[in-house]
């Protein structure tokens, strides 16, 4: 499945991993003593490569149709490289690495690089496309109905779900049967016969489209009003749900002064390449800008813009506190219970274990929502049980304590399980030896059990920290970042960097993809540094104890 999807960039990289040489004598021996080809192995190879070829051909047709020649070249090169790799006898390690690597490149490395490149732009709402796109948008959104505008019978249709799919206009030229289909990209004629035109000139059905009925259309009247179809002389807009008019654009772009002029008011907005927008002399900006490279300004904003840097520092500190609190809390609780149940005289441990790990086996997204409702002020279980009426998610510290408690519940069974396993792996002679030497139980725990446990579990603790540092669900499905300070609705007291980023990119206000991407990179840097340092320390520990 991977071949058709490898996006630009993978072609260069994927085969690049291919030319690996079998260096050490160990593997070169494997390579020399070729085993005879078995029938089963041959059959598997033929079937799998046939599948690859089939998928490549299937994927090639839409690429040819859409004239995406670069994509096609990438697809063909990747397929050819796969055939070369698996038909030959060399490059044995690559045969095992390539399948996963292809997916990794297509769906992780490429998106991550894409994200990194957006961090240096102002990409977001109002700055989505090129300058030309912005000019088209400005001109067509300024379209007004003028006397003598042509009127068309209109049907609204979609290729997808009537409630959510992207809308198109189906219009009929008055007096004829010529049907055209229009979307934000422009107007193009539909094949004659592909559409059925009703008596009033309205299209009632069209091949490949679902025509919205009146109820469906009125449910999406806002989308219909917002849809502007650019045409040669201006643009096409709806007036009501069943008529469209072709109006004249009031604002026009003048290449000579690189500015936009309004023919009604005479005002001009000049292009500013630094910020990617048309700016008037009085500082007014047009909403439709374009994407430009803004260098490091997304990163410096975090430090210099006071409205961002203050709350950001708070979020950063809380983010660390949350990750350390969740990881440490679950580890301590899990280890305590594991220690308690780890005794040869203890009976019923299997039963205990079965019940203790139930929270881990439950679907965590659902249990997070259950916990959210258990903390509900009016009907929640916690308030009911203790006769309280605390607004748990309304105050900073109670909300923070609540989310950590929830993480404790969700996470400690895992720590219990791994601590149990690690305890079983510690030879009993070691603890017995300490008690023979007269150490107390606490001394033997401090000197023998705990260090060995830490050596065994620190990789897991580090990855648990990294996971909790970006534990989106833990916050988004419970508090959603609340409580928010009155003056800053975009950064709440329980917000982690990741939920803050998500709000910047997909929240209610204008999306700031560029800024969100910059914070993503920031998160990545923090987690990478913390992990690298602790992995290094772990290795030193292992050398000391093992």
């Amino acid at each position: 499945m991977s071949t058709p999807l490898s996006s630009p960039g993978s072609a260069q990289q994927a085969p690049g991993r291919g030319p690996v040489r079998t260096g050490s004598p160990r593997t070169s021996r494997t390579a020399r003593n070729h085993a005879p080809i078995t029938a089963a192995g041959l059959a598997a190879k033929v079937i799998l490569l046939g599948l690859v070829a089939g998928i490549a051909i299937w994927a090639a047709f839409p690429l040819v149709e859409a004239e995406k020649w670069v994509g096609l070249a990438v697809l063909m090169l990747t397929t050819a490289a796969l055939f070369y790799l698996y038909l030959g006898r060399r490059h044995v390690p690559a045969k095992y690495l390539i399948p996963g690597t292809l997916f990794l490149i297509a769906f992780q490395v490429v998106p991550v690089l894409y994200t990194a490149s957006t961090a240096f732009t102002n990409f977001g709402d109002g700055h989505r496309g090129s300058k030309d796109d912005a000019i088209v948008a400005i001109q067509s959104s300024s379209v007004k109905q003028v006397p003598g505008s042509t009127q068309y019978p209109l049907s609204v249709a979609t290729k997808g779900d009537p409630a959510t799919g992207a809308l198109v206009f189906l219009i009929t030229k008055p007096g004829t049967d010529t049907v055209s289909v229009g979307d934000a990209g422009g107007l193009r004629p539909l094949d004659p016969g592909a559409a059925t035109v009703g008596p009033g000139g309205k299209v009632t059905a069209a091949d490949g489209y679902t025509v919205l009925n009146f109820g469906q259309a009125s449910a999406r009247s806002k989308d219909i009003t917002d849809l502007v179809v650019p045409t040669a002389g201006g643009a096409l807009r709806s007036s009501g749900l069943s008529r469209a008019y072709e109006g004249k654009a009031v604002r026009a772009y003048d290449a000579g002064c690189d500015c936009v002029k309004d023919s009604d008011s005479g005002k001009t907005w000049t292009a500013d390449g630094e910020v990617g927008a048309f700016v008037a002399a009085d500082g007014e900006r047009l909403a439709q800008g374009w994407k430009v490279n803004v260098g490091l300004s997304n990163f410096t904003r975090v430090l210099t813009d006071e409205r961002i840097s203050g709350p950001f520092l708070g979020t950063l500190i809380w983010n660390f506190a949350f990750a350390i609190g969740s990881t440490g809390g679950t580890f301590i609780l899990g280890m305590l219970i594991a220690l308690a149940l780890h005794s040869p005289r203890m009976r019923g441990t299997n039963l205990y274990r079965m019940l203790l790990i139930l929270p881990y086996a439950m679907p965590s997204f659902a249990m997070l929502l259950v916990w959210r409702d258990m903390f509900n002020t009016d009907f929640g279980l916690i308030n009911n049980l203790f006769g309280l009426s605390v607004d748990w998610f309304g105050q900073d510290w109670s909300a923070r304590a609540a989310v950590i408690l929830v993480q404790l519940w969700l996470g400690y069974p895992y720590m219990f399980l791994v601590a149990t396993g690690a305890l079983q792996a510690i030879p009993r002679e070691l603890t017995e030896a300490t008690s023979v030497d007269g150490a107390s139980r606490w001394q033997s725990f401090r000197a023998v059990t705990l260090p060995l446990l830490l050596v065994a579990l620190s990789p897991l603790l580090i990855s648990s920290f990294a996971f909790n540092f970006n534990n989106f669900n833990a916050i988004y499905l419970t508090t959603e970042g609340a409580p928010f300070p009155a003056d800053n609705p975009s950064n709440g007291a329980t917000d982690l960097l990741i939920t803050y980023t998500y709000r910047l990119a997909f929240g209610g206000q204008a999306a700031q993809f560029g800024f969100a991407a910059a914070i993503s990179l920031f998160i990545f840097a923090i987690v990478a540094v913390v992990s690298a340092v602790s992995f290094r320390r772990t290795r030193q520990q292992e050398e000391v104890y093992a």
Partner: protein
Amino acid sequence: MTMLTGAAVTGGANGPAAVNRNGGKRKKRWFAEVGWRHLVGLLGVLFSLFPLVFVVSAALNPLGTLSSTELVPTGGVSLENFGNLFARTEFAHWFLNSLLIAGGAAFASVFLSALAAYAFSRMRFQGRRVGLLSLLLIQMFPQFLAIVAIFLIFGTITDLWPAIGFNTPWGLLLLYLGGALGVNTWLMKGFFDTLPRELDESATMDGASHAQVFFRIMLPLVAPILAVTGLLAFINTINEFLMASVFLTDTDAKTLAVGMRGMLQGGERNTNFGIFAAGTLLTAIPTVLVFQFLQRYIVSGLTSGAVKG
């Protein structure tokens, strides 16, 4: 509570001796040696169970609202919520979607990372160290940080190949496979490293190819651990919310996480709690069953990987 029987049995076994001579001192010693362990275990079990008891109670609550749900059902029990769950929502669809996506992703990701781990563990080649380190690095950049880019990329894919685009399980499955290698390869490599090299070397001497060594010798030996890793991948995928919510907007195409969160949105939050709880219990059935079934391997498997790092 079943728990108490465990403690009672242990107490009973010590009982006769304790009564015979010096009962008090014996009891004290019993508590210091074993009793406190049961106490800690019991407290842990209570902590683990009380939200679950609440969910069961909510699922059986005939009124089905959050406000009328107590920890222990007092207003009678009924299975109405389960009926409503299937009648009023697309729960069955969501359940199948989740099983398909999570099952497929778990199986494929375990297989892909086992392949890679075999190469990293048993072969020496140029770029091996760089490969391992970059996997570690990539693993730290969670895929969903790139959600904006993923959204834009899949917009193009949906135009070209609608069969693997938005609102299809296949698109989401492919996306999850992108993260497979980063998550599991290191863990698996640790498992493969624990197997003695003499095994595959002798097989090679006997004329086995590298594929035969992998499929006939290595894979069967690590099968329990593969099962555990697969189970963890399965659970993680079932719980994945962020990317699924961006990908799946059609009601029929949703997964459990996306669909069930929708139940508790807005004004429906109080009234839908009963059917939500019923859905939670049904969702838990496959994972809890597999979990209990694999428990033996989970304890030994997880930590043997952990110990070896």
